[in-house]
């Protein structure tokens, strides 16, 4: 019985849990509560994935109101896939976060931190689960507003200015999406995504639909941090509390990418987006610039968290590049990289959290000789770093492999060269960190530094093992991505 209500439970459970969490007393309880809730929602997302696999896309009508009048939740393969990804990463992050939060955030704010975290998590799940265009805007703002608060809790005062900048850019982006929704509603009279998909073809010659398309493109690319709209991201990731960096780096831009798939493939449809309005012409150059410039910028960063943030911008370039190829193979490569990169970046930021908990700094020069005292953390960083570069036997290789295959299918060998060249750039910036960790003498005052706590290490290695596992046995993500891409292109 309850199985039929999973789509709404997925979103409502953390939403209801968030305010309850703020009422809990100052103790371990808020952490325990948030962690239990996140694992519970992870279980729900797994159940949803099984349901979608067995019986196809799920449609859930809120309060039993029929479609164009009531709000509908719509979960297909890509949706279920992203839900599992987001909830798994949130669960691992929350499990690891207790120690980090105790060090980085004042005791009286703990309950509020977990409340904001759960709200942000709710927002991200909601964007994925909903089938209603206006609902997307509401969930987008729930997740954004709580993430502004989360980022502002960072120890460094620069966290405040980073958060402020994100607030300005994020609000402009969300408002652009709102304008897009409004213009579509004006022409079609519906907000339901499946309904929009049907009706948009009757009105796709109208200027207001074209304007809506433009507003959606800019708004989503702002949230996605695609070059040149990326300026808010590096500082936000670098100065946020470690747990927040891990969670946002691994999920927030991925959900924005999901929204891009949803809007341009499901609502507008492939033909309108790519053949009539040539979205690929915009995404292709921007993705290439993002890949090259962000990777170069990453090389010159002094702080490793900022370095990883710039690397994320480059990786987003790979994902949008897959879309810009305008082929099924490209879309599959994009989805696979979305999945793999979430674990790779999650693992790398998790290593940063481990290092920060012992060395109290992630400046590149302060990591000198870290491998002597923290061998497990550094080994995890090396493995995840290799995955980021795309070395065989790691999941990063699978992503690059499918991306390059998709490019060669179009005979754009020059583009394949650029992709390989940017991979070389990532060798350079990852090597800079590894060199400090392994080849430099440790600072004299770091003699009594111990390995990070077991729970942090377990969570880090959990993500690292995922990247290795999906590098060797890639059948699961590849099948999922193929299935999802077929459904999106239909």
């Amino acid at each position, binding site marked *: 019985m309850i199985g039929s209500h999973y789509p709404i439970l997925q979103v409502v459970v953390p939403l209801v849990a968030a305010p309850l969490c703020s009422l809990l007393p100052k103790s371990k309880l808020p952490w325990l509560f948030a962690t239990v809730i996140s694992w519970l929602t992870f279980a729900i997302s797994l159940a949803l994935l099984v349901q979608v696999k067995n019986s196809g896309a799920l449609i859930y009508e809120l309060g039993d109101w029929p479609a164009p009048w009531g709000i509908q939740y719509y979960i297909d393969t890509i949706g279920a896939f992203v839900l599992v990804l987001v909830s798994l990463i949130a669960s691992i992050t929350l499990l690891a976060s207790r120690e980090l939060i105790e060090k980085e955030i004042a005791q009286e704010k703990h309950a509020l931190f977990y409340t904001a975290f759960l709200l942000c998590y709710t927002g991200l799940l909601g964007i994925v689960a909903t089938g209603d265009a*206006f609902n997307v*805007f*509401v969930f987008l*703002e729930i997740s954004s*507003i709580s993430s*502004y*608060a989360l980022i*502002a809790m960072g120890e460094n*005062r*620069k966290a*405040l*200015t980073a*958060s*402020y900048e994100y*607030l*300005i850019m994020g*609000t*402009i982006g*969300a*408002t652009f999406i*709102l*304008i897009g929704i*409004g213009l579509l*509603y*004006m022409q079609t009279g519906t907000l339901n995504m499946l309904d929009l998909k049907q009706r948009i073809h009757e009105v796709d010659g109208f200027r207001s639909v074209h304007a809506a398309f433009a507003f959606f493109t800019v708004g989503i690319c702002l949230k996605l941090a695609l070059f040149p709209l990326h300026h808010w991201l590096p500082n936000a990731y670098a100065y946020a509390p470690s747990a927040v960096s891990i969670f946002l780096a691994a999920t927030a831009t991925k959900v924005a990418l999901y929204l891009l798939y949803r809007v341009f493939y499901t609502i507008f449809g492939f033909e309108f987006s790519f053949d009539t309005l040539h979205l690929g012409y915009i995404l292709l150059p921007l993705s290439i610039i993002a890949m090259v410039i962000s990777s170069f910028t990453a090389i010159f960063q*002094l702080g490793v968290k900022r370095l990883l943030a710039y690397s994320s911008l480059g990786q987003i370039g790979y994902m949008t590049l897959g879309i810009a190829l305008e082929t099924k193979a490209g879309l599959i490569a994009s989805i696979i990289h979305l999945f793999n990169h979430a674990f790779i970046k999650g693992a790398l930021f998790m290593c940063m959290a481990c290092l920060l908990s012992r060395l109290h700094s992630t400046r590149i020069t302060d990591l000198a000789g870290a491998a002597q005292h923290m061998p497990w953390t550094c080994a995890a960083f090396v493995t995840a770093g290799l995955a980021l570069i795309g070395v065989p036997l790691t999941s990063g290789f699978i992503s690059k492999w499918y991306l390059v295959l998709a490019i060669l299918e179009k005979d754009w060998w020059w583009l394949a060269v650029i992709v390989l060249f940017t991979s070389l750039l990532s060798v350079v910036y990852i090597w800079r960190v590894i060199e400090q960790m392994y080849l430099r003498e440790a600072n004299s005052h770091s003699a009594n530094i111990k390995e990070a706590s077991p729970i942090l290490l377990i969570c880090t290695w959990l993500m690292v093992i995922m990247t290795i596992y999906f590098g060797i046995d890639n059948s699961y993500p590849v099948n999922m991505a193929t299935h999802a891409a077929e459904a999106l292109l239909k």
Partner: protein
Amino acid sequence: MIDYLINHYNYWVSILLMMAGLYIVIDHTNLIKKLIGLNIFQTSVFILFISMGKVDGGTAPILEQGYSSFSNPLPHVLILTAIVVSVATTAVGLALVVNINRCFQSIDEQEIEKIELEEE
């Protein structure tokens, strides 16, 4: 031409407000003024939505004898939600500015940037 301008005046108003708001966000260095600009920008979108639902000669959508034409209430309801979102954003933004002022002793973007650069 004049007719065209007058008949679409609701769009002109919202476009004017939208551009004014965006300009303030981009041009001003005072963090509070930026937030005010952001508010004007959002408000312009609310006006766009609300004016969209108006039907000429239409009345409130309550079934009553003698009325046959109704304005669409849905955009109004949507904007009610969007106003709440905008209030929340402004509240978080102002809270951030208060904290920025406490930590940097300034709410001017360029001065803060200077302080941040000196730190590095």
